């Protein structure tokens, strides 16, 4: 490809030519210009970067990376399907029953046929009894207290899903700041801050959440607190590690050499690069928070026992299940609420994997023996298989 390589093999030819008509010129043979133009760049750098950065004044290179990540994510069919599932579940739980804020109806739709707390045999139809099996009228059956399970499952997502996103938003932002400070300042500050993280890491998340709920009691914001108070440690450790390793890179040194200020270095080089693993972790974390919230509900320590929350609903079915077969086994009371949690968390994890594949810099970079060029041209599925 290069002139060096060619000179070795064709030296004889070169010498003869040089003697005659092309004296003083380096002749390059075996160079296929089309092929080279087709190949994807090995790194995220391109000639446009400088120009872009000049015009919009911000980080052109980092924008480009996010745009490429987005493009790659869109090509990942299973991740897009999972995104659709999550969006649909969130939307359905929002539209399931009207939402009132201080007496004003904010959201008038009602997809769920009954109110999740209505006891059917008292106010709707006296012929309904607890644990009626699924029927066209009650597609998921009736629960132990005589409430419509379908309506309850639809509404149940409100708590788990919103707590999941709120907690991840809070913990990820706090962890980002904490980890960045720790990694940037280093020294004693870093040492002390990371020991604190070590301590938090010593407790399994669910045990701490249980302890917090044990002192604060159950409820929506108590659950948010239970998972936020200690959930940031993972982000802090991750960001700190990223910041440390990025600070060592040549491009940071280069930026400093040409006189960039610390603030610029952090904003343009350190932050964008530390952000993508953070986003990956956050997208994978939503699912585990949702499971944690449901687990607390299942243990009877989350929301109020009558609340239509997926985990709390399972708690109510547990007793009948343990007591064993008494006539027909009400499998629907167990299968549907738990299935809702499972589908949501599964979809969230598929999205997380997709984000990971789309943003993982190592897979596209030169670090893996230059295979990046080949892979980058391949479709999303090829990359997905690599995980």
């Amino acid at each position, binding site marked *: 490809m290069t002139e060096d390589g060619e000179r070795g093999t064709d030296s004889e030819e070169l010498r003869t030519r040089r003697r005659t008509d092309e004296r003083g010129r380096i002749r390059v043979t075996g160079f296929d210009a089309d092929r080279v133009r087709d190949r994807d760049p090995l790194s995220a750098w391109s000639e446009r970067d400088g120009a872009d950065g000049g015009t919009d004044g911000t980080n052109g290179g980092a924008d480009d990376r996010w745009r490429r990540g987005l493009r790659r994510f869109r090509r990942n069919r299973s991740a897009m399907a999972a995104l659709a599932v999550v969006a649909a579940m969130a939307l359905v739980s929002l539209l399931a029953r009207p939402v009132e804020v201080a007496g004003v109806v904010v959201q008038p739709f009602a997809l769920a046929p009954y109110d999740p707390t209505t006891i059917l045999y008292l106010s709707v139809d006296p012929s309904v009894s607890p644990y009626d099996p699924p029927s066209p009228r009650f597609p998921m059956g009736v629960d132990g207290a005589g409430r419509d399970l379908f309506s309850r499952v639809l509404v149940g997502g409100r708590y788990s899903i919103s707590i999941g996103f709120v907690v991840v938003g809070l913990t990820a932002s706090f962890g980002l700041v904490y980890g960045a400070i720790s990694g940037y300042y280093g020294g004693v500050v870093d040492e002390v801050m990371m020991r604190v993280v*070590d301590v938090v890491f*010593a407790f399994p998340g669910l045990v701490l959440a249980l*302890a917090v709920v*044990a002192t604060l009691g159950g409820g929506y914001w108590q659950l948010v607190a239970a998972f936020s108070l200690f959930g940031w440690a993972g982000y802090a450790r991750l960001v700190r590690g990223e910041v440390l390793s990025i600070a060592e890179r040549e491009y940071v040194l280069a930026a400093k050499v040409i006189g960039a200020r610390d603030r610029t270095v952090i904003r343009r080089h350190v932050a964008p690069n530390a952000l993508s693993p953070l986003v990956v972790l956050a997208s994978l974390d939503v699912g585990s928070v949702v499971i944690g919230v449901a687990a607390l509900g299942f*243990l009877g320590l989350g929301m109020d026992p009558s609340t239509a929350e997926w985990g709390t609903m399972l708690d109510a079915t547990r007793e009948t299940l343990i007591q064993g077969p008494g006539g027909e086994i009400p499998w629907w009371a167990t299968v549907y609420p738990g299935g809702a949690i499972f589908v949501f968390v599964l979809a969230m994890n598929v999205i997380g994997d997709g984000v990971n594949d789309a943003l993982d810099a190592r897979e596209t970079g030169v670090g893996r023996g230059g295979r990046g060029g080949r892979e980058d041209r391949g479709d999303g599925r090829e990359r997905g298989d690599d995980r």
Partner: protein
Amino acid sequence: MSLRRFVLRRALSVVPVLLGVSVVTFGLFHLTPGDPVSRLVALNPDVSAAEEARLRERWGLSGPVWRQYLAWLSNVLVGDFGREFRTGRAVSAIVWRRLPETLVLGLFGWVFAIAIAVPAGIYAAVNKGNLGDVASRVLALSGVSIPNFWLGLLLILVFSLYLGVFPVLPPSRLPLYHPETLRYLLLPGVTIGTAAAASLMRVMRTSMAEELNEEYVTAARARGLPERTVVFKHVLRNSLVSVVTLAATLTAGIVAGSVVVESVFNWPGLGSEFVRAIDRREIDVVMAITLVTAVAVVLANFLADVLYAVFDPRIRYD
């Protein structure tokens, strides 16, 4: 750095973490408004102030918080976790009786996880892209996503209620070493091990696949080694290193899982005792179990680091 010095240094770094763990445990239950005594007193309006003070004295809840902490810590260090409010039983006795049950369950979960994950991970990495690989990846993803309490309920539903293969509950408490215990252990053990098995499998597959791309594998093949030797002797050993780093995280997951799974199956271990104690506001029991789990996780972390250093000597020269 020699291995011995590495282990010693790492062991020393455990001490401040354990101290912090004790501070967090104590703080969680003592910095919130309303201590256990005021909660108890609120139930009975006839208690006089003098009696309340005596109660506080008795449960070590008088004086400034830091002095309470020091008193509590010095008691804990000699193995005294206090007494239950209601029954007056020693908390340490409760912990000691429940601990083996949880250990057996956790160990079973671990063994199950490794027995499933390592062969499946090897298979998936070697046969990358074929049907078995895809199937095992779907299974692993489901295993990571399934809530363990729901899995437990489903297992009870299918195997105990419909098929009647496994008993729902032990008829009476058997000693743990009794062979019959295994039958009762199977469902909760599988439930607790599934998440660990799934994440272990995912890591195993990724790291195996990565190692298989390394140059030394090509070199080994070029030397004419049979594929079997290449995979099991060279690749497996290197990819196990990343499994060891995951081990501590998974242990924490199993410990947290035991709280839920024991409640599902009414397994009489620390986890179900923990939930029961929270329900009854037995603060000393809750604190003792929180502390014990945290110490267990710290020790597991320590052990994983030591194993890591044994497998990968480069770590010691950090």
